[in-house]
């Protein structure tokens, strides 16, 4: 155990070292002080007061899904199951039913996304040939009950006003400006922001 003895810390030697390093440390304190002054509330702060203030997210943000509607209010989804197949987390459940419509033969009578499993990869949006499922910028998903409240069914996925307030998120193969404001007023002013 020679090594043990040789490694005994010489406290006085270290104290000397610290003495010579005072300038270096003073420079460090100056940086801290500068940052402190810089971040006086209201000036240049990076911390935001969530949930009153929110960070703006880009138009590609992959948040909670939304189902889009036809002009007559029907779901655009034709229950082709492509989204459910593409989903790596296997969290989409669809049940199809037939309709007596010339153009469309099938609609989804049940469409559920288990958001407690969803990893927000956006593969379902990529897969859909109809743009029947898109994503929004909604992200605050905390609930008291993960069994029911995170199972989003058709009515939850088509809450128009709420979804509109969060703003449209990721849609397939589209170019978006880098960062847009989060504010709902600004979003509704732009037609391309509509979910439908």
């Amino acid at each position: 155990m020679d090594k043990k003895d040789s490694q005994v810390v010489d406290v006085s030697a270290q104290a000397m070292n610290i003495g010579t390093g005072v300038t270096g440390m003073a420079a460090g304190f100056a940086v801290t002080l500068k940052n402190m002054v810089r971040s006086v509330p209201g000036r240049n702060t990076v911390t935001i007061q969530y949930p009153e203030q929110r960070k703006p997210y880009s138009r590609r943000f992959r948040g909670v899904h939304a189902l889009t509607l036809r002009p007559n209010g029907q779901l655009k989804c034709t229950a082709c199951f492509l989204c459910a197949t593409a989903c790596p987390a296997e969290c989409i459940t669809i049940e199809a039913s037939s309709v007596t419509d010339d153009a469309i033969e099938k609609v989804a009578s049940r469409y559920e996304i288990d958001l407690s499993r969803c990893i927000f990869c956006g593969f379902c949006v990529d897969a859909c040939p109809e743009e029947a499922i898109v994503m929004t910028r909604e992200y605050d998903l905390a609930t008291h009950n993960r069994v029911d409240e995170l199972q989003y069914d058709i009515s939850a996925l088509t809450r128009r006003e709420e979804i509109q307030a969060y703003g449209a998120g990721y849609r397939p193969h589209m170019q978006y400006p880098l960062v847009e404001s989060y504010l709902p007023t600004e979003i509704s002013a732009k037609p391309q922001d509509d979910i439908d």
Partner: protein
Amino acid sequence: MGSTTGFFTPDYSDEIATSTKEVKSDTMIINLGPQHPSTHGVLRVRLELDGERVVDAQPVIGYLHTGFEKTAESLSYQQCNTITDRLDYLAPMTNNLAYVLAVEKLMDVEVPKRAQYIRVLFSELTRIASHLVWLGTHVMDLGAMSLFFYTMREREIILDMIEAASGVRMNPSYFRVGGLAYDLPDGFMEKLQEFLKDLPRWMKSFRTLFEDNPLINERLKGIATITQEQALALSVTGPNLRATGLNLDLRKAEPYSGYEDFEFSVPLKTGCDAYARFWVRVEEMYESAAILEQCLTKIEPRGVYMTSDRKVALPPRDQIYGDMEALIHQFKLVTQGFPVPEGEVYQSVEGPRGEMGFYIVSDGGPRPYRWRARTPSFYNLQTMPIMCKDGLVADVITAIGSIDIMLGDVDK
């Protein structure tokens, strides 16, 4: 004593055995972690102590085991992409890159030059982001609080850029087989330019905090040494290896994704200790910034970002709505995935923590037969017993921080 509990029984068992024999009677076993803020996740280190002196330090891992490799076998090649994000979640882009390069190698897919450069761009951005987290947390482990806030502040800008391009901050899945998921967003290059203009300024202020600070230097110099031979014997890679003086950077040694077109140098140190590893990483951030500068001129803001090979790439949207053939491709790709020719492949890239590689065995189907991730932190963590032996307890914290482990990466 103790060497069997760890996941790794080191070759240095002789040394450990001798030292434990002598002090057997009065050693104490202490668990560091798994719930300890300085272990950077859920790492448990089984420490055998003789007073303040460490006799043995065995990492016990698996608390974050998720079974990614097995999961991947039941997913199609596109879907596996989402798993790679979650391995090393501070550098998801380099994981993506290693994986898509492996599949592309096996399939012989041609990737457009512009997409390759954008991949370089994001790899280097994540390298800076990852090193910033390391710098903040490592220095915080050593007792300096404020740097953590500043590094997080700057990292936020990188995450914003990643979010703007890929849609999410942490698990982007941005690189897909054949190219990229989406093109760069409007104004991205301006934002990058702004970031690069700011970088020297904040790096300088960070350096002021630790450069001449005797407290930091004393805690790093000569601590947690790994010699070059030991590092090579344990497959240590990345900055940890380059801090032992060995110039091995896969970006230079086996250029991939167009790295050969970029000019940069590989920071090397010979100190073998925590101090050397510290400065290798800090200097790497400047080199990454240099690569990003070159990206500004090399990448046009608009252009092709995905191969036109319909065997792997989803057809463009406007075609899906109007073209029957495109719609069939869409259905086929989504429902069946693309078949990958039979064979096996290994492809590795230089991640922020070292060699990130994927070994994929294909049986010709749309799902991997075997999907193996060679994650750098797993190998780097094996150095714990060597680094900590005969050191002080406080230096165990330095050792953990200085090899920059990522538990998602270790436990898989």
